């Protein structure tokens, strides 16, 4: 974690406090009167100016046509704040905690949205550097990681100008998410350790998940990949099944960052090798700086554990 070089000025501190005060915390957000803010847009101000001009034209020339138009625009301006506010009020959002992401790809954060009425053109945007280009919507958010590590995503801006763009209603949300960002996947050398050298317990895992002898069919798990899909069963319309094989216990592989390389680069190579290994059904374990060891395993949970461990490796090896 990098520290700020200078202590924040009073103005910055006050601003931070204000932002904290204005933002909603918690994984769930319900938008209501207390956490929604609304102000006219620049277009709304121009609209007001136009009302004045058209009304003036009308009364100067004693024509009621422009007067009627100006009053219609005024009526829409008066309706505007209520309509725009209503477009967000009552909306409920819940952040689903995402799994670990990679430093080079935007992280997908699923949102569960609940609303009694249809909403139009609700826009979301992460506040923070480097985030503005990603398309967001009420179903899923994309978050661009600044790099490997464990990050707080920062504040989310939820705003709308519907229906006429005269007012902008917004709210800040700071979901308390700890996002684990594993290194980017970059092919390269890794250190493969022999089983004995770093597997002191020498545990024997009862055999399963080999690929030699067909044993049974069982419902397909997503992490099994396409290699084990029972295509015949699928083609008969009986659903997604995976073929189970019994056989030799697969080789257990321990991986460590390649020595002699810069740590971040070595971690990127390690991450790539880990993902490749897990995808092809290898049992992979990790030995990481700082005496962190993850025993070989498989499955989604194991994969998450490995990636989180990779994300959490301290930048400087601990003494």
């Amino acid at each position, binding site marked *: 974690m990098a520290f700020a070089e200078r202590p924040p000025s009073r103005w910055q501190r006050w601003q931070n406090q204000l932002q904290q005060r204005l933002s909603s915390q918690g994984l769930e957000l319900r938008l209501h009167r207390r956490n929604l803010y609304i102000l006219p847009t620049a277009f709304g101000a121009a609209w007001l100016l136009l009302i004045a001009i058209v009304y003036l034209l009308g009364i*100067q020339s004693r024509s009621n046509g422009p007067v009627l138009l100006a009053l219609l625009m005024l009526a829409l301006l008066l*309706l505007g704040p209520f309509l725009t506010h209503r477009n967000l009020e009552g909306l409920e959002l819940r952040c689903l905690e995402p799994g670990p992401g990679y430093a080079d790809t935007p992280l997908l954060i699923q949102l569960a949205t609940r609303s009694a009425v249809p909403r139009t053109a609700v826009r979301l945007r992460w506040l923070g550097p480097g985030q503005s280009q990603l398309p967001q919507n009420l179903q899923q958010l994309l978050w661009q990681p600044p790099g490997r590590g464990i990050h707080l995503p920062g504040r989310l801006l939820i705003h709308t100008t519907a229906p006429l763009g005269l007012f902008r209603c917004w709210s800040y949300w700071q979901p308390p998410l700890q996002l684990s960002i594993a290194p980017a996947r970059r092919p390269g050398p890794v250190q493969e350790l022999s089983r004995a050298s770093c597997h002191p317990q020498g545990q024997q895992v009862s055999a399963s998940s080999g690929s030699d002898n067909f044993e049974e069919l069982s419902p397909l798990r997503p992490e099994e990949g396409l290699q084990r899909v029972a295509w015949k069963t699928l083609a008969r319309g009986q659903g997604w099944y995976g073929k189970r094989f019994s056989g030799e216990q697969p080789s257990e592989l321990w991986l460590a960052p390649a020595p002699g390389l810069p740590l971040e680069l070595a971690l990127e190579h390690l991450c790539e090798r880990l993902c490749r290994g897990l995808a092809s059904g290898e049992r992979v374990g990790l030995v990481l700086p700082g005496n962190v060891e993850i025993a070989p395993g498989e499955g989604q949970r194991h994969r998450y554990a490995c990636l989180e461990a990779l994300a959490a490796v301290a930048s400087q090896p601990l003494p």
Partner: protein
Amino acid sequence: MHQTQKLLLASQVLLWLQLLLQGQLQPLLAIALPALMVLQLRPPRGALPRPWLLALTVGLLLGWGVSQALGASNGLLPSVSNLLWLMLGLQQLEAKRHEQQQRSVLLLLLGIGLAGLGSQGLAASLMQASAALLALAGLHSLESDGQRLLASLRRVAILVAVALPLLVASFVLLPRLEPLWSLPEASSGRSGLSERLAPGELASLVQDSSLAARVSFAAAGPPPAEQRYWRVLVHQRFDGRSWSAADNWPRPPAPPPTTGAPLGQRWIVEPSKLRQRPWDGRSLPLAGPKTSLQITDLGTLESSAPQGERQLYSLATGARSTSWQRLPPTAIDLQLPAAANPRLQALGRQWASEATDPEARIALAQQWFGRQGFAYSLEPGQLDSLDPLDRFLFETRRGFCEHYAASFSALMRAAGVPARVVVGYQGGEWQQPAGDAGFLQLSNSDAHAWSEVWLPERGWVGVDPTAWVVPERIRRSQRLSKPLPGWLMAVATEWHGLDYRWQVWVMGFDRQRQLELLGQQRWQGLVALAAMALTLAGGLAALWRPWQHSQDRARRCLNQTLQLLKRHGYQIHAGEALACFCQRVGQAEPTLATELQLLAAIYEQWRFGPAAASSGAALLGLQASSRRIKACLARGRRHSA
């Protein structure tokens, strides 16, 4: 093409059409605007390159400048409006980004407002309103990205409908401001009357059937045809060729305004360059804050309101303001250039020697006109001679009202009878839309000229020599135009009636009308604000219908039944399923058992079953079941009583 652009283009097309139909566009714009629209629709090479756009802008602005220099437009406001409409078309051409399109919506609304200055008829107003609606729909589709075109239109129609009560409340109640400063007077006018009458200079008279004025009467029905003479101008000066108004006629002090007299006529006069307004020569103008009308010694009604504006005024019935009729003639009323029209002068002198009484001289003139074979013609040809009236009276004998009135008045002066020419309107078309008292519609082709002679016993008396020649023109009181087929006539009458009401009640609703309607109220501003707040709240309530969003119809029906059961002592517990509750109540009230089971089954099917189950039929079943339970409970109560 994006939805927003389509909607804005449609709005522009409507605006252009309205401006074209009302003749508010300069020739350059009438062509340039549709060309710009075509460019919007199909830009060459996908999008117009920037240099092209620049060249187009500069070219069109130059064209506008040149057409201004050539005098294409009259007045500042029409020129500026035309410039703005031109810029609107150009702006729309380059508007691609969000803010640019927002800007073009604003420009479009301003353009519609400017169009509303020039034309206020019902048709024009409807077109302007539709254009505004389309522009708003464009704005809506811009803000709610990805909505379908019709959805945006529908949504905006709902919004405008909700805003409408608020609009009406603010229009009627908000204190209306008077103009803050006076605008330069427009030099254009559309009335068919001119300040100079020169028979013989016009080869033919173009029938301009555009609207000049409308008048409604407090008394039922239109006045008889012989009385439909509406005087506007009086010409006294005759130079041998043309008649014109005398200069420097002394203005009498303004008479005290009439108040309290019953309303006789209500006039709406289209913009005219004349200060004089049409009237019947008998009534008195009613006082109003804006109308400062006064009757001159010549019997014309003069207004001090700015020219080039539509004006509304009322005349009192019963009050006979005929003092101008009694004012004796002056030397100018007998003035006749000695050199011009010798044969006319000779004829006049002959009549003077034949009869001493002015009325007898008029009778001689009538006989003479009857004998000479005069014909009424709108195309009499030019009388390019030094003595045009001689040429008309003794050679061509073909002409329209101007020829007859001018030569008769000159003849009377030659015969020693003071005479002058009156210009105004005669006749008019009676419009009787359903459910309305009706009104008389005067168009510019109803413009007429007649004579006025001085009879010592009766004062100034109107004489219409045209009626001697073509009596049917006066008697029919109809314009000499092709009649429409019957059904179309009925439609036209209804339309004219709607238009009239729109102009009187909406476009003519000014400070004076507001005061008439509301009275002098100290709290008017407050009342207006309160009414606006109320209509705003009502509109929002209607828009949101919270009672409908929270519950669907099946749920409401169920809730009513549950309320009913609660009144009979059966309350559903928290967490109790509907089926369990129904079973529990069924055990206590065996007569209801089956019905309640049915209710629970239908509701659960509706709520949780496949989509087909939640159809209208299921809802009907639910409602029927609910009704039967209600009836059953009522019966049970009667039995126990």
